């Protein structure tokens, strides 16, 4: 897993460190946890366990599904077009993360109970926010 990380918790003290001291650090627990949460979501979707997939979503993403389509989360996720595949890159910045797999780009946020997916099935639109099949587009 390629991991490019900057933790906001580093703050000023870490910011004062030479850039090289922070670059190229190895696997980060936060990146691994974010990738695990993403894999849990896509695995649940691919196996048809939409209840588990819904549990991996952030509350706002669940609410968005309900508000946008008037259906509950599990039902809405049945037709979601979300790719999968091995993780290629994880970026963690503060309480936000982006996990790129070979078939998808997923955005996550860290809450009190760990990482949750805020958007999945996302397609790049250049400088515009990603357009996502699940969760709110930016």
């Amino acid at each position, binding site marked *: 897993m390629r991991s490019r990380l*900057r*933790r*906001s*918790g*580093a*703050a*000023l003290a*870490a*910011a*004062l460190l030479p*850039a090289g001291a*922070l670059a190229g650090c190895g696997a980060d627990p936060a990146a691994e946890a974010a990738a695990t949460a993403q894999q849990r979501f896509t695995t649940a979707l691919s196996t048809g366990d939409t209840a588990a997939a819904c549990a991996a979503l952030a509350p*706002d993403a669940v609410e968005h599904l309900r508000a946008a389509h008037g259906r509950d989360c599990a039902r809405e996720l049945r037709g979601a077009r979300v790719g999968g595949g091995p993780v290629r890159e994880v*970026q963690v*910045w*503060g*309480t*936000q*993360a*982006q996990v790129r797999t070979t078939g998808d780009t997923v*955005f996550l*946020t860290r*809450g*009190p109970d760990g990482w949750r997916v*805020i*958007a999945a099935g*996302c397609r*790049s639109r250049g*400088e*515009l*926010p*990603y357009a*996502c099949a699940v969760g*709110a*587009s*930016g």
Partner: protein
Amino acid sequence: MSARARRALRDNGIGIAFGLLFLAALALQAAAGFADFTEQRLADHLLPVSFGRYLTSSAFAVDVAENWQSEYLQFFLYVFATTWLVQRGSPESKPPGSPHRTSNEQERVAEHAEADSPVSARAGHPRRVVFSVSLGATMGLLFLGSWAAQFIAGRSAYNAQQLAQLQDPLSWSDYLMSPDFWNRTAQNWQSEFLAIGSMAVFAVFLRQRGSPESKAVGAPHDSQG
């Protein structure tokens, strides 16, 4: 309080007073910044973070560092620029026509050092040269360090915001060219340059009785004070 303690407080009044003001202002910035940060996160449909986590966040770090760098740049430029540039009638300036390079005798260094001169003023060449520019160099290094901190923390804070808005994070090189970095930088620089220039010019015509930053009230406008 003992007479010795009272004397220490009196003799270090500027450093102590501004140190306390700095801490009070930093605490105020932290409180107000936390409230603002919380509002922004709620607007982005993100969970609020604790005050402790905010204090160690890049969002707080960049707001602190961007102001530090401009202040140290201000003093770095002021220390060096006043070696070369003059402002007639300003107590902040050397008199017009003064030589840019001063002699060892004027600076009381090397063989002209006096009994109470710092040891470095009497020292050999490398040490004496370093000591001779230590004030400006320290300000310059603090500026560069603070600016680097602003860059690193700024990129971290910006990228967290990018991800929250479902956008890609920026690389080092992209952030170096980004409007966010240069807007934060330039908005602080312009105010410092304005403050330096206006202080030097105002001090030609205006007075502050009792302040070493001012000429004597009765001093003519065209004297350096």
